């Protein structure tokens, strides 16, 4: 088995009510430092740009977000090398390198990437021609943020959880071995 697989956040659609608290928490958490987004709406001076996307089907809903693939199609598609894998194997977009070519959006089979405006210092960044800077926006598992993924922390229904298959796989395989052991006499 591969060692050190990347983690990802997965939602249980049976618990999600579609309240979008995850999207807002994601936005707030990532814009706390650079854009002074705090606890009230009045502190928001920029477009709300989440890194996970609430999706509704006819029967249920849930936020869709990056799986941090081991052979990530987005990373492989990015000609600017703006998508990289950090030391924890998480797949991260360097928005300052992104030119908004949309290749990653098309490459991702989950729909986990959107092209959204980029803000700094409480205002949308502008290009030479005064159009706003847009970059690929996708889950970075709140890397560098204390407490881990904000979406997981705020979900009122505990529908989201951080999946660490390194541990889960080991626990499952040990359980399988134990059951083989337990049933060996029968």
């Amino acid at each position, binding site marked *: 088995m591969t060692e050190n697989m990347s983690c990802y956040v997965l939602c249980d659609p049976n618990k999600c009510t579609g309240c979008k608290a995850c999207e807002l928490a994601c936005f707030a958490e990532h814009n706390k430092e650079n854009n002074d987004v705090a606890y009230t709406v009045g502190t928001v001076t920029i477009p709300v740009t989440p890194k996970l996307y609430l999706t509704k089907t006819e029967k249920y809903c849930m936020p869709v977000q990056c799986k941090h693939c081991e052979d990530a199609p987005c990373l492989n598609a990015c000609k600017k090398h703006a998508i990289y894998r950090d030391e924890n194997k998480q797949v991260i977009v360097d928005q300052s390198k992104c030119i908004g*070519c949309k290749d990653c959006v098309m490459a991702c089979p989950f729909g*986990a990437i959107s092209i959204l405006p980029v803000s700094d210092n409480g205002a949308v960044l502008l290009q*030479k021609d005064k159009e706003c800077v847009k970059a690929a926006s996708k889950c970075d598992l709140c890397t560098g943020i204390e407490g881990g993924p904000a979406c997981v922390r705020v979900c009122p229904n505990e529908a989201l959880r951080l999946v660490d298959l390194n541990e889960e796989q080991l626990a499952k395989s040990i359980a399988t071995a134990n059951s083989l052991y337990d049933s060996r006499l029968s």
Partner: protein
Amino acid sequence: MRQFVKGNPDLCIGCRTCMIGCVVEHEGRRIFEIDPDGYDFNPKLHVVKTAKVSVPVQCKHCENPACMAACPVGCIKVINDAVVIDQKECIGCKSCMQACPFGVIDVISQVGTSQSDGSKRVVANKCDLCVGTGNGPACVRVCPTEALKLVSEEAMQESVQKKRVATAEAAKAIADAMAD
């Protein structure tokens, strides 16, 4: 998101009709009836052929175009949501060509123009999505195998939405399996 034309290597037969269609559209003259030396054949997209693949490559009309940021004279502009080079202002510095990660900007010599030393002006050239012609991209229209498609913002969003719904359905299956 800006629209762009995308080639499908599975359908492309490498016939280069798209390149001819592009020149016909932008030349504005009946090129098959005039002296071949009377115009320059400067398509804004190029069919790339390797041992593995044949497909036309052309501008992605990026949201934050590297070419536009690199242009020192500001001649790359967004017109009708397409990234367009104003060839009248271009000084042929090749900065955009170097900045573009897709290799879809060319420098071409412009027919009927001259610099002070008498040589032709050389300017940057790339797909402009046929803005202003009112017909939509010529390459898409002329391709005999329908290998080129104009990918609109709506089409893009629809495709992403479909993928998100499929992801949600898969997550539902996982949640159900784990609940059992």
